């Protein structure tokens, strides 16, 4: 099988420095693995693709936010997002995501921090947490996790010092991939249990090829903060499909916020790359995130994984042509053809949702039968979550085009049904 072959490209390396489980600084790891380190550092680059990458937007640094460059604002690109998120922090500031190098600062300085009091939980996916969690838990990962989750963000922030680093994905001794995130360790266990696999331990039971996706699934997933302890939880105990996740939230009666215009108890979906990828033909074919986002590249006599994690459309020959013999422009065109379809239907679903929200807003407290309004709010909750699930998924549908279109079709139907529910039944002909 092709993977085995590719993976046979093992790399001799020189142990210049001694690395331990507590070596956090990537620069130190870089002494032993300069090629990977160089790629890792290049995640500061900002290049835009038709739907992805990111654009470097200059700004004048302020005391509150010293960043001199940010990514473009998605709210400005599409004001309807503001309507969908009315009353929630995302309506204040939401930008296109960019490279890993920015994850920590972008989280610290997003204006979402100003309008809402965020918990330490946020750090789970925006910093190198392996050392801090174990330190805070006096050696116990989960105790440290619980402890930092419970702190206010500013306080927890003091415990961390790097964006995701080598030690978050690699065992310092063997360089083997490993999952270090409590959220995924528990989430994948619940998901496997739903499939009838009890006591799944990802670092013990996963194949190497699976690990090439699981290390990414540590963060590129839908999540919520459970209970007053704000415990980070991946809603997978019924499965990874959007219906199963929505049902999970309904059952546990969870809501992210109450919609400011419609009064509906709504949910926010966030970057479900891992969940959507799971529904696609590539996952089904055993193709992992790393195969496309960290493709093997030859450097001199060595074949290494490109640690410049980015849009594969910026390195099509390495990312795609090892499996697909089409010319680069044709491969780009195929991706964009799928994305255009998904984006078009996403816009249609967005219009339907905005229309529903407008209708509910128009009739609320208007003597309109409360039960009808309630039905409409229920439809909004689900329609909005389905639409956001595709909107928040960052491949604009490419990871699973058929699934994305199916979900959007559902969303459209739900929004329109909500609008119908608000209207008095038709008077039939006598």
């Amino acid at each position, binding site marked *: *099988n*092709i*993977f085995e*072959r*590719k993976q*046979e490209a093992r790399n001799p390396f020189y142990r210049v420095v001694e690395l331990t489980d507590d070596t956090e600084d990537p620069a130190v790891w870089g002494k032993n693995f300069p090629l990977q380190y160089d790629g890792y550092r290049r995640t500061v680059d900002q290049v835009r693709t038709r739907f992805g990458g990111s654009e470097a937007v200059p700004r004048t640094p302020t005391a509150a936010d010293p960043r001199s460059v940010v990514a473009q604002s998605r709210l400005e690109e599409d004001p309807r997002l503001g309507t969908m998120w009315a009353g929630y922090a995302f309506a204040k500031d939401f930008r296109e995501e960019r490279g890993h190098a920015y994850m920590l600062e972008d989280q610290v300085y997003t204006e979402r921090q100003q309008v809402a009091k965020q918990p330490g939980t946020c750090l789970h996916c925006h910093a190198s947490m392996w050392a801090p969690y174990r330190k805070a838990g006096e050696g116990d990962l989960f105790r440290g996790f619980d402890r930092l989750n419970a702190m206010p963000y500013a306080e927890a922030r003091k415990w961390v010092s790097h964006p995701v680093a080598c030690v978050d994905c690699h065992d310092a001794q063997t360089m083997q991939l490993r999952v270090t995130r409590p959220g995924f360790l528990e989430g994948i266990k619940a998901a496997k249990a739903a499939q009838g696999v009890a006591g799944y331990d990802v670092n013990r039971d996963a194949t190497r090829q699976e690990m090439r996706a699981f290390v990414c699934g540590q963060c590129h997933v839908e999540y919520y903060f459970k209970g007053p302890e704000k415990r980070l939880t991946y809603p997978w105990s019924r499965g990874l499909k959007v219906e199963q996740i929505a049902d999970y939230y309904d059952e546990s009666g969870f809501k992210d916020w109450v919609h400011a215009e419609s009064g509906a108890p709504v949910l926010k979906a966030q970057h479900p790359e891992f969940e959507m990828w799971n529904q696609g033909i590539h996952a089904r*074919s*055993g193709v992992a995130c790393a195969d496309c986002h960290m493709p093997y*590249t*030859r450097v*001199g*006599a060595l074949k290494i994984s490109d640690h410049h994690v980015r849009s594969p459309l910026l390195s099509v*020959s*390495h990312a795609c*042509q*090892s*499996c*697909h*013999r*089409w*010319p680069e422009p*044709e491969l780009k065109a195929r991706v964009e053809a799928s994305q255009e379809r998904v984006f078009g239907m996403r816009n249609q679903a967005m219009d339907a949702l905005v229309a529903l929200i407008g209708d509910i807003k128009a009739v609320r407290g208007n003597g309109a039968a409360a039960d009808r309004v309630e039905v409409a709010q229920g439809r909004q909750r689900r329609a909005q979550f389905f639409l956001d699930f595709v909107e928040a998924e960052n491949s604009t549908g490419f990871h699973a085009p058929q699934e994305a279109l199916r979900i959007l079709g559902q969303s459209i139907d739900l929004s329109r049904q909500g609008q119908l529910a608000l209207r008095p039944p038709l008077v039939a002909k006598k």
Partner: protein
Amino acid sequence: MGGRARGALAPVVAGLAGVAAGVGAFTFFYARGASYLTNDPKACANCHVMNEQYDGWVKSSHRSVAVCNDCHTPPDFVGKYATKASNGFWHSFYFTTGAFPEPIRITPRNRAVTERACRNCHSAVVEAMVADRAGHGGRDAVSCLRCHGSVGHLELGAGGSLPVG
């Protein structure tokens, strides 16, 4: 399509050879490029950049019936060594300069060589399909590689290797 039209470069080769002779010659020994003159697949694998194909070949349906040269060099004596010389020179050249695009892809010229190789061994079984019904300009006589692209070295992914119309 991918791959540079090596055929078009052919006339230049002589001149270029002069320039690149040193480089070419150096690698020719260093990388045991002379292995081009043998039939042993291991010889091809002397170049690590050929490892993927070698490993694939070992897993392929042809492992016990065809070696690299059976599919990658013309049957006739002259053509065989001409191609080997050309490939030998170019591969050595690129290998040394490292100036080649990856993933490595078969060039149109060698593709034609391979298409012919298939028919050499399988002419009987494919008679019915290769019959010249090329009233459609012979513009695309059957391509074996379109469906059997991975017989030489097993690959994942569809055999999508025909020119996009």
